[in-house]
């Protein structure tokens, strides 16, 4: 029986913010666009983003300029970012945010009626445009409505398992409908991967089931390079109780609004963990921090410096981990985060979904008492290596944007920079893919051998009869990654993890599932596991290679940042012809003198 086939110019895989923004741009450039997503439209992980979108609009503090945003991003990324990406991001984010307003988004307002901006960790000025603490919902709904009214074809609840390539690069993609299990083929002149992150490689994560590293793995299989895979962001504040919601995100906006971190002895421990070289950017006393909060809650600035809780995420995560490890944690293994000293109605207005989340899921009223929080796997800085201008990967016609692309955030991402990243590079990548499709004279040749192999792989777990349960394999992988490749890493653990991953991979061909093809979650998980094993190996091998500590990557056996040895290079992962994984390094892209000057003493 012939496979259901939908030829397009540009196929976008993933309908979170990056995928939607890419699809809108490609369609506007005249390309015929197909947009594929694993879930229903509007449910992608962008919807979970809470705190805001970073853009130097200068509405609250007119001193904020793209140059400062660039510097903050590079400093936060420990100077490992692709400087051109960080520049484009800082320059273009304000226009991309204003464009959302043009498409119907309704952001919170300043007193003079413009888009309000809030402070966030690592940002020198109040910079995050937001809607309470549901900014991601506002963004995805705005982009979804724009995409739908532009007439883009959306293929919901559809999983891509293979990017098909030929002599001229990308030729399309193969996948299946989750609702029926039937295969589907998308011949395409360009493919944009916008599949998000990899959080499901870990047990404790803020990510949903969708975050299985699909784009990373599809690109790797197609021959593209991944970079910076050792850098996984552990967000400092996830819920730690009850067990069913362990890992669920507690927005950084709680700290942006003045939330204080304390250990079980009531000590405000972040004072101890501020890096010496940045200590002068933070308040010196509780009193100064309090003055800063009072000004911030009125949408004003003051001469007070920001509270120590607004240090970068990598630093706050390590601090919390250390407090708990040294016996100063709360009964459920976290620390306290307290915003209840501010007026209750202010807290409910600025953090409505946090208020509901704790009230409904943990029986905690955050206006009356502290939350319990601990680190949770949140975001991968590493991803598909792309060209800064167009988002094209190292494979012709294969593009990537958003979390699954690498380079923009270096060794650590600042809060709020992911939403701006997906807008800026979503748009650039959509334009890049449309231009590529337009410039291609040949019709994509879809290799029937790759298609029939993909079909066989799809059917195999259903036909195997007896075998291993995919859920059990996933639990083992997640537990192992959390234990051996977590916040603090060491040579022996990483070596052990590489061995464990090889053993788990050897069990993949034995996975068997019962039931049929119609909406069968056990069967769907098989293909996600394959991807998770690829990204887990990439993370582990890259972490083993980088013998220093920098940003989100902390080595117990190499606790110092080694600027001379590692400051000028990114880790690179690619697939060898024999299918094994090669890890190497590549020199950091060159930085113009103009940009270097902006970094001042930081470089």
């Amino acid at each position, binding site marked *: 029986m012939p496979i259901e086939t939908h030829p397009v110019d540009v196929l976008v895989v993933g309908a979170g913010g990056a995928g939607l923004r890419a699809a809108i741009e490609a369609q506007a450039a005249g390309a015929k666009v197909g947009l594929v997503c694993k*879930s*229903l*439209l*509007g*449910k*992608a*992980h962008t*919807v*979970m983003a809470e705190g805001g979108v970073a853009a130097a609009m200068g509405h609250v503090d007119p001193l904020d300029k793209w140059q400062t945003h660039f510097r903050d991003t590079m400093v936060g990324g420990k100077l490992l970012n692709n400087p051109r990406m960080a520049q484009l991001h800082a320059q273009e984010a304000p226009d991309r945010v*204003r464009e959302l*307003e*043009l*498409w*119907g988004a*309704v952001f919170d*307002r300043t007193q*003079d*009626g413009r888009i*309000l901006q809030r402070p966030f960790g690592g940002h020198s000025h109040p910079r995050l445009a937001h*809607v*309470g603490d*549901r900014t991601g*919902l*506002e963004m995805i*709904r705005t982009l979804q*409505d724009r995409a*739908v*009214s532009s007439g883009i074809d*959306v293929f*919901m609840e559809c999983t891509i398992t293979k990017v098909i390539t030929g002599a001229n690069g990308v030729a399309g993609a193969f996948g299946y409908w989750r*609702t029926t299990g039937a295969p589907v083929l998308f011949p395409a002149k360009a493919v944009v991967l916008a599949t998000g992150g990899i959080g499901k490689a870990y047990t404790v994560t803020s990510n*949903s*089931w*969708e975050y299985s590293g699909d784009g990373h793995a599809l690109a790797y299989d197609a021959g593209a390079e991944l970079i910076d895979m050792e850098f996984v962001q552990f967000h400092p504040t996830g819920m730690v*109780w*009850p*067990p*069913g*919601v362990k890992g*669920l995100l507690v927005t950084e906006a709680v700290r942006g609004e003045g939330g204080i971190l304390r250990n079980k002895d009531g000590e405000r421990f972040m004072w101890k963990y501020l890096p010496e070289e940045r200590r002068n950017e933070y308040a010196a006393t509780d009193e100064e921090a309090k003055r800063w909060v009072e000004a911030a809650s009125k949408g004003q600035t003051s001469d007070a410096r920001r509270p120590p809780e607004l240090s970068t995420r990598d630093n706050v995560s390590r601090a919390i981990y250390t407090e708990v490890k040294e016996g100063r944690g709360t009964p459920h293994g976290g620390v306290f985060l307290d915003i209840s000293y501010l007026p209750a109605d202010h807290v409910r207005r600025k953090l409505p*979904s946090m208020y*509901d*989340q704790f009230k*409904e*899921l*943990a*029986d905690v009223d955050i206006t009356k008492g502290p939350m319990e929080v601990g680190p949770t796997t949140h975001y991968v800085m590493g991803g598909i290596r792309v060209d800064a201008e167009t988002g094209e990967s190292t494979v012709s016609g294969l593009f990537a944007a958003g979390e699954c692309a690498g380079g923009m955030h270096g060794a650590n991402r600042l809060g709020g920079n992911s939403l701006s990243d997906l807008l800026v590079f979503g748009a650039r990548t959509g334009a890049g893919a449309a231009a590529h499709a337009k410039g291609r004279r040949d019709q994509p040749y879809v290799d029937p051998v790759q298609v029939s192999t993909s079909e066989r792989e799809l059917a195999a777990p259903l036909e195997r009869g007896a075998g291993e*349960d*995919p*859920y059990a394999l996933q*639990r083992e992988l997640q537990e192992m990654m959390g234990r051996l490749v977590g916040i603090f890493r060491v040579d022996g653990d990483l070596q052990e993890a590489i061995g464990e991953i090889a053993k788990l991979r050897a069990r993949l061909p034995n996975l068997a*599932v*019962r*039931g049929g093809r*119609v*909406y*069968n*979650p*056990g*069967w769907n998980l098989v293909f996600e596991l394959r991807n998770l094993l690829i990204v887990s190996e990439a993370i582990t091998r890259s972490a083993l290679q980088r013998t220093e500590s920098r940003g989100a990557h902390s080595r117990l056996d190499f606790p110092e940042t080694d600027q001379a040895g590692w400051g000028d290079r990114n880790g690179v992962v690619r697939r060898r012809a024999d299918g094994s994984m090669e890890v190497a390094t590549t020199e950091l892209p060159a930085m113009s003198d103009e940009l270097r000057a902006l970094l001042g003493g930081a470089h």
Partner: protein
Amino acid sequence: MTEAHIAHLKVFRGEPGGATRYDEFDVPVEEGMVILDALHWIQGNAAPDLAVRWNCKAAKCGSCSGEVNGKPRLMCKTRISDLDLDEPITVEPMRSFPLVRDLVSDVSWNYEVNKSIQAFTPPAGLPQEEWRWQQQDIERVQEYRKCIECFLCQDVCHVLRNHETEKPFMGPRFLVRTAGLEMHPIDEGDRRGYLKDTGNIGYCNITKCCTEVCPEHIKITDNAIIPLKERVADEFYDPIQWAWRKLRGKPAAGAAGTPLPMLQGGSASDAPAAAKGDKPTSEG
């Protein structure tokens, strides 16, 4: 483990056209557990092919809608400790929509309705640099925009659930979306004709069931539907407006456009005898 720490779940299983049934599972209860946790336990330990749609598990995405003991609920937000564990807990898909399999229903009709709504229409002559709105002027619109599209309001709406109307009805979710556009401080679109003749707003007889099930606590009936009904009534049923239009030969505002598809039969008709005819009860 004592009896008190076990939840007995009766889970709807099956596909359209085939025999459907309720499978029973005994699930060990952990502190703070929600229905979705129990379903994940079942997938991981007893029935790996149990179909459940979910994403964020934090009541932010609106994917895991279903009916728990006959009540439309987000399964990630339904605490097991709030239910009577002496009785079996019945878990079913949203019944107003066609069945895909087990707890998953086909909600694609909603996406078709959404396409028919005129998008945000800002004034052509007002440069964006001059857009200025006060926070209090947008709080109502922000309330509508809190909607997470769980479609529980569509599921509970008796107009949609009974499948008995002659013409299609857009349902509360899309009245909320339309209200968000109509009441945007600078939107210039006019959707009144569409509301009356395409969305058939007249079918809503304001029983407020939708408001009661909304997990985002949007006052759907009072704050969205009734103001829209008033706008439609002012335009079409006000005798002065009517006479004025006749006099000037102007058509009524907000052209209707092509008709919406009808929502096809829900899975209530596939239900085994035990659950058939159950009316959903919303929570007061």
